[in-house]
Each structure stands twice: as structure tokens, then as C-alpha cells.
């Protein structure tokens, strides 16, 4: 973050927190913009203020809606409501939620404020980080926690939790058809030119629909990179719920196992062998995942993975950004297509 931009954000947040906390003045320190993603912007900071009993300070995370990004449309109120509902109706590890600010005057776009979590986020391009994975036993323990947390997500009762505002439905065939339609439209809006393999894939998915019949809350982007390990080594937060919907829960399993998140490892999200991942999931949820269903969602996952890459190139082409990472997504999408033809059995 440029110094001038950081100063402006710090100043805006200091005034905003002072109003929210009902105090005269606050000091904002440790302000850091986390630049890992391409969509939502996350800032962490420490806020210090004076109360009757003396000085107090607390750590917060601010999640700001993007002006533009790879996965539109963005709806901060839905994100906030989902987070709030999951805190009330599940044991999914999530940060505490404090405030929603819909006025764009403060940070240029709406944002919400959560508890700042302490820990580390394992990411797919550092799957051998010795601080996170000192040995295989530790990797396995994280993997087991990863499955248990996914089971918690899938055990949420969407009706009891009041998740009617999420897209999708519990009829998994209908939901799968709607997902294909949605991502076909997304592809249409994003591509620079036709990508014949993706056009083939859309038709193939429609002809070979295979779902589990187990409809429920789907995280939509559950994988290495989207959870944090706390100081005790356990998952203490699951992030990035912007693609959450109601649909076939097997999508989350297939997505976590995508080659995209395996690096050079054969392990699901670089954590567990696939058979063990599915066996443990079955023990926790009672769902036996059939191979054809897993394959259907894996193939669908390639459409889901490739389309935002195309959108990156489109955003760059349209001059909406000069972020070169987005221009690089065009050729990166070719690797996803290579994984697709391997999954189809067309390539060794």
C-alpha cells in the first residue's frame, strides 16, 4: 500500500472507529492491507482508545467490497448475513462479527468489521513450508481438521439457519443445472474469444449430469488457502464465502481435490490422500461419494476455475485495471485446460 493511501485509510478508519466505539479519539496502528486476493480487500489493524478505566486496544479485520474483481456481482449484505447466520447456527470456526458499514463514503466502498484472528494461512504454493508442515503427522492432523470443518459446513440446516437469501436449491440436479447456466453466462461475459474446450465442457456437463442428492450449504471455494490455523494448530477461521450457495455438497469435496490446489502433491489440497479424505468425510456425514458424481463436479470445477481467469484477461483488455497479474491469467488458463483434458482421459 502506498504511504499516502495508507495514511488516508488510517485517518478514515480512525474517525469511523471513534464514532462506532463512542469515544473521542482512537489511534490506529499496525494497519496492513492483505494483497493476496483479487477481489475483496482485507485490512488488519489495531485500535487503541481511552476509557474510564484507562487505555484499551483491540485487533480488527476490515473486509471491503471491491469496485471490480474476478467474481462479480459482489453483495456485502449477503456476505454479512451469511456470516452472522453461521455464527448463530453452527460451530464452523469463524471470526466474531462486529459491524457492517454500507456507506461508501468511509473507504470508497461498503465494508464490514470482524475480529482479527491470529494464525497462519497455508497456501498451495508453499505446501512444504516447514513451519506449517514440519512432518507428515502434522500434515495429516491438519487434513483431518480440514475434513471435519467441511463436515460442519455441510451439516448446517439451511432452513433452520435462515439461509433462504442464498442462491441455489437442495434439489441437487436442479442446482447443478443452474450452476452450469450461471457459469456459462459468466464465461460468455468474460472471454476474449471462444475457448472451444470450455464450450465443449459446458455441453458435456449438461449431457452427463451426476449429482449426489445431498443438498445443503456449499462453501464454494473450500481449499488450502482459505482457512487459518490458530496458535493451537487447529483451524480457527474459514474465509472467502463469496461463492457460497445451496446445492450439491460434493462440489466442495471435488473442488478441494482439484489439481489446481495440489501443487506437485497427489494429496487433496496438499493435506490428505483422496481415498482417506472421502472415507473420513463419509464417517462424519454418512455420505458415500460415488465416483461419477465426484468426476462430474471435478469437471465442472475446471469451468469454475477457468472462467475467472478469462475474466482477468477481459478486465485488463477493457482497461479496467493495469494489474499485470490479471493479464497473466490468459496463459495460466491454459494449464487449467491441460488439467481438464487429463481429467477427461484425453491426455496421459
Amino acid at each position, binding site marked *: 500500500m*502506498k504511504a499516502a493511501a495508507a495514511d488516508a485509510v488510517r485517518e478514515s478508519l480512525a474517525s469511523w472507529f471513534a464514532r462506532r466505539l463512542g469515544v473521542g479519539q482512537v489511534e490506529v496502528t499496525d494497519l496492513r492491507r492483505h494483497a493476496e486476493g483479487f477481489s475483496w480487500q482485507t485490512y488488519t489493524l489495531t485500535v487503541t482508545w481511552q476509557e474510564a478505566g484507562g487505555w484499551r486496544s483491540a485487533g480488527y479485520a476490515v473486509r471491503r467490497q471491491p469496485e471490480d474483481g474476478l467474481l462479480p456481482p459482489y453483495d456485502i449484505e449477503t456476505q454479512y448475513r451469511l456470516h452472522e447466520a453461521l455464527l448463530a447456527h453452527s460451530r464452523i470456526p469463524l471470526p466474531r462479527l462486529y459491524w457492517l458499514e454500507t456507506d461508501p463514503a468511509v473507504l470508497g466502498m461498503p465494508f464490514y468489521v470482524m475480529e482479527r484472528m491470529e494464525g497462519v494461512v497455508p497456501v498451495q*504454493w508453499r505446501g512444504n513450508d516447514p513451519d506449517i508442515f514440519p512432518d507428515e503427522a502434522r500434515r495429516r492432523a491438519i487434513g483431518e481438521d480440514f475434513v471435519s470443518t467441511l463436515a460442519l459446513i455441510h451439516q448446517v440446516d439451511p432452513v433452520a439457519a435462515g439461509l433462504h437469501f442464498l442462491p441455489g436449491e437442495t434439489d441437487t440436479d436442479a442446482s447443478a443445472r443452474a450452476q452450469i447456466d450461471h457459469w456459462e453466462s459468466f464465461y460468455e461475459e468474460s*472471454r*476474449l*474469444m*471462444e*475457448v*472451444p*474446450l470450455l*464450450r*465443449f*465442457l*459446458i*455441453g*458435456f*456437463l*449438461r*449431457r*452427463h449430469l451426476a449429482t449426489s442428492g445431498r443438498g445443503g450449504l456449499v462453501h464454494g471455494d473450500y481449499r488450502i488457502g482459505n482457512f487459518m490455523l490458530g496458535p493451537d494448530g487447529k483451524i480457527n477461521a474459514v474465509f472467502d464465502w463469496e461463492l457460497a450457495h445451496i446445492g450439491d455438497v460434493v462440489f466442495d469435496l471435488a473442488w478441494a481435490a482439484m489439481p*489446481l490446489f495440489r501443487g506437485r502433491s497427489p494429496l487433496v489440497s496438499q493435506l490428505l490422500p483422496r481415498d482417506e479424505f472421502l472415507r473420513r468425510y463419509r464417517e462424519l456425514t454418512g455420505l458415500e461419494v460415488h465416483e461419477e458424481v465426484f468426476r462430474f463436479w471435478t469437471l465442472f470445477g475446471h469451468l469454475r476455475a477457468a472462467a475467472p*481467469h*478469462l475474466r482477468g*484477461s477481459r478486465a*485488463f*483488455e477493457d*482497461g479496467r485495471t*493495469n*494489474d*499485470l497479474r490479471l*493479464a497473466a491469467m*490468459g*496463459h*495460466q*488458463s*491454459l*494449464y*487449467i*485446460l*491441460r*488439467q481438464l*483434458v487429463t481429467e477427461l482421459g*484425453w*491426455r496421459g
Partner: protein
Amino acid sequence: MAGVGVHNSLERLFDGLAASLREAVLPHLTDPYARSQVGAAIEILANLATRVEWRRDLVEGLVELVGEALAAAGLEPPAVSPDLAETHRRFLVALAQAAANGDPDEPIKQALLAHLEGELRLLRTGMYR
């Protein structure tokens, strides 16, 4: 010229590369030699932009590949346009349409694969490599 396949147009790439170097990199450089190198890179990009285009032989290869596959599948290939990008677009559309039902004839399937393999052979880098 528009983007080609999954790639951005060269005009936009050169503009964007120069803009990113000027706005996101240069302000953070204090070493005079490093600044001069970035300044020169911006100048080279601006002047390359008026002199290069995407490789014509690659589009000609696509025309041949897709044309043969369509003929083998009993389909009519599109007309070649004097505009390179337009020809590229037409042949990708034709291949996509031939494959869109999700159960293409073998020649179309082989063309899909050969087109991808050709693109992959040109890659030198990439985070998923």
C-alpha cells in the same frame, strides 16, 4: 486488434506493461540506475507496440487444423478474413460450435486436443506449470 484466443491484444499488453511499470514500480525505486532501467523498458515497450503483431503462422496453423477437422466431420469451415484476429475468432467459433453438444466426432475432439497442445508448447512460464 482484439485479444487472440485467451491472450490479450498486444496493444493493450504494451500499454498495460508500461503503465504498471510507471505507476506501480517506478515510484518505489530510489536507485538511479534501477530507475533508468525501468524508464528505458517503458520506452522500448512503447516503440515495440508499433512494430509487432501476433504470429501469423499460428493463426494459419489453426485455420488448417480446424478446417481439416470440420471437413472430416462433414462441416463447412468459415471464410478466411483479411483481418488476422477476425480469422482467428471465426475458426475458434467454428470449432466451439462443432464441440458444443458435449459429444463431438473424433476429428473435432482431436482438433480440440491439438489446439490446446499447440498453445501449451508455446508456454515458457506459469504458476501452475
